[in-house]
């Protein structure tokens, strides 16, 4: 059915598009990171690897190694993402588990409700929280009434009454969780859904308690789903800059995305912005490669089925 060249011809436009607008674009980042600036503070890319100028890269690496601001921001970002990821897992696993295994005839509806946040603009979801957490907002009043606000202040997670939007790391982390937890629930749901009920039945038949059955059968089988979900959540969080910007106007909660955004779009250090982008990509490469291989494996399995 058509020569193999038909298929390659069909794929060609897409391949060329991605090659030009994705691969070349990424190379532009590399060329600028290893480039220089002109006297108008505009970046000048050095396309030829033999010409590369490592001055800016060294400067940024020195900054990190000496514990200056870039290291601070990277560490803060790691901390935020790790905590947000853990919270997302804590919230998302029970929900995914329920939807996959106990929803019964409500499964479709539950799934629909779980997917719904994907279609709501991320910014609108954050906007909703900005309204609710403003000093006279409903959530602020509610949290004050039920005492959660006092608890947070006592735990040092909130510095002033009603000051949820005043540069609080806890607000940023919770906002990240709110924003990205759907990204974790869906793949986790898919993984849990695929687990064969019979394996659990077998464990039960062999005398395991429900909890033990969960711990020793379900949980291990869902590990790929957990990892996939965590990666899918961590990747966008690392590059997030708009969430801290929206729920906290303070420098105290700046993440690496904020630094990249500020340096690349304003000011005179755009090359540094490109360098930071490169470093961030390198750090995330591990996560990305893992996810791609896992997906390819799943795709291959599906193709063979």
């Amino acid at each position, binding site marked *: 059915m058509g020569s193999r060249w038909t298929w390659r011809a069909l794929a060609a436009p897409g391949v060329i598009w991605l090659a030009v607008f994705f691969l070349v674009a990424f190379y532009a980042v590399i060329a600028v990171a290893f480039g220089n600036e*002109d006297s*108008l*503070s505009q970046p000048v890319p050095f396309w030829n690897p033999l010409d590369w100028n490592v001055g800016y890269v060294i*400067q940024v690496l020195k900054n990190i190694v000496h514990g200056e601001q870039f290291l601070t921001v990277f560490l803060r970002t790691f901390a935020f993402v790790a905590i947000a990821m853990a919270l997302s897992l804590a919230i998302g696993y029970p929900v995914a588990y329920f939807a996959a295994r106990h929803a019964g005839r409500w499964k479709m509806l539950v799934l629909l409700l779980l997917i719904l946040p994907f279609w709501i603009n991320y910014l609108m979801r954050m906007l909703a929280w900005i309204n609710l957490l403003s000093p006279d907002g409903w959530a602020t009043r509610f949290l004050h009434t039920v005492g959660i606000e006092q608890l947070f202040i006592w735990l040092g997670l909130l510095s002033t009454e009603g000051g949820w939007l005043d*540069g609080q790391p806890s607000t940023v982390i919770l906002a990240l969780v709110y924003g990205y937890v759907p990204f974790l629930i869906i793949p986790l749901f898919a993984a849990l859904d695929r687990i064969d009920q019979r394996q659990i039945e077998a464990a039960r038949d062999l005398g395991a308690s429900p909890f033990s059955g969960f711990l020793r059968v379900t949980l291990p089988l869902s590990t790929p789903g957990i990892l996939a979900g965590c990666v899918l959540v961590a990747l966008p969080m690392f590059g997030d800059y708009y969430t801290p910007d929206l729920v906290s106007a303070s420098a105290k909660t700046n993440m690496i995305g904020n630094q990249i955004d500020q340096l690349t779009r304003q*000011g005179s250090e755009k090359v540094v912005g490109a360098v930071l982008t490169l470093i961030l990509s390198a750090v995330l490469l591990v996560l990305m490669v893992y996810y791609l291989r896992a997906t390819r494996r799943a795709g291959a399995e599906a193709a063979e089925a």
Partner: protein
Amino acid sequence: MAHPKDEHALTRRRLLQGAAGVTLGAGALGALTGCENTTTPTGSGTGPVQSRFVEAKPVGPGGLPLPRPDNAVTWAITEDNKPILDGRPVEAGPLKIYNYADYIWTGLVQRFEKKYSAKVELATYDTADQAIAKLASGKVTFDVILGLTGSNIVNLIAQQLLMPLNHSYLPNLEKNVWPELQDPFYDRGSRYTVPYVVWSDGIGWRNDKLKEDVAAMDVPWDIFWHSQAYKGKVGVLDDKRDTLSMPMQRDAMHTGARPDLNTEDPAVLEKAGKDLQQLTDICNVKIAYNDYQTLPEAKTYLHHAWSGDIVGAAIYYMPKGVKPDVLSYWAPDANGVVQNDFLCIGRHTKNPVLAHNFIDFVLDEKNAYDNFVQQNGYIPPQKGIDADLLIKQGLIPKSLAGAVTRPDQFAANQELLQLSVEGERAWDDAWSKFKAG
């Protein structure tokens, strides 16, 4: 660079804050050096050495001098770029104007269109960098450009983007504009530019929320470092030049020395940066430029502010039932930031006479006044407009008299001007440390 309108648009009826635009690199000035590993930008340096007995001053792009109050610069009229001759007939237009968003009253534009029977097309930019890049790209020609400042003039001249002015078409310049601004140091003879509006950097606060009388303090800037009681309700401007200059002014007021707000000294910048970082812990300082909304709405009580924003807040942004006299403003008498921006004409304009007419039109006293009252919030440097007039007309309360910039403030205060490339870098570095938290 240090223009209040940079990276945002002060809207009155529409609260659209334009996203910070991107600067387009028009081309490298100076050759690319290539193989060395360096962080020195190409085309930078300290310029031609005068003599080993003279301290070399930093220079700007293209090796051009950086204008300073003590280093006035007269830009030459070159052979290939001469002003138009006197008495030419006016063109039919359309006139292309390049401006910040919402920075000129549309009614004024309509008035001009009627008077000269010519159409006017308004295009907007978000940041000065973006504007210069677009002008330099040569793709579009603009007839009149508004909103750029003495911190951009060197770039404009270096890239040959401006047409020199013929003052015979601009009688209102001498008639109406403050004498102090008719012959600025960054453009001696007003050969290329004419002032548009003026402002100062100062402190805006809610006098009904703050216990302290900020204006009565020895060093009012100190209030920021003693604002623990107002945690979460304090803000500084999201502009590296204006905000880093604040601790510099504070230090100078304490020691009685004269600060250089265009300094390139890394030690000074480091101290300023560290001082600002203290604010993060003291009062959870916000870094924003929407004080014209947050102060009237009491979302902030104390804010580093541009005078025009405070006037705008008093006139347009007060919520129902809140009187504008709850707002107060203070700016230093000396060694603070007092600045103006200008109008200029694009080099390849096809309507030079019409462009000159537009500038003269804006400089007319009634037009300038209407522009200010209806749209802008920033005072035009007109001889006939001052604080007393505005207070008499009930436009601003007495507590904001200090927000109306006076001509005598220019001499004692400083403008935020263009730096050399290394200087820009040093400021950016200090700023990014502050913003990293």
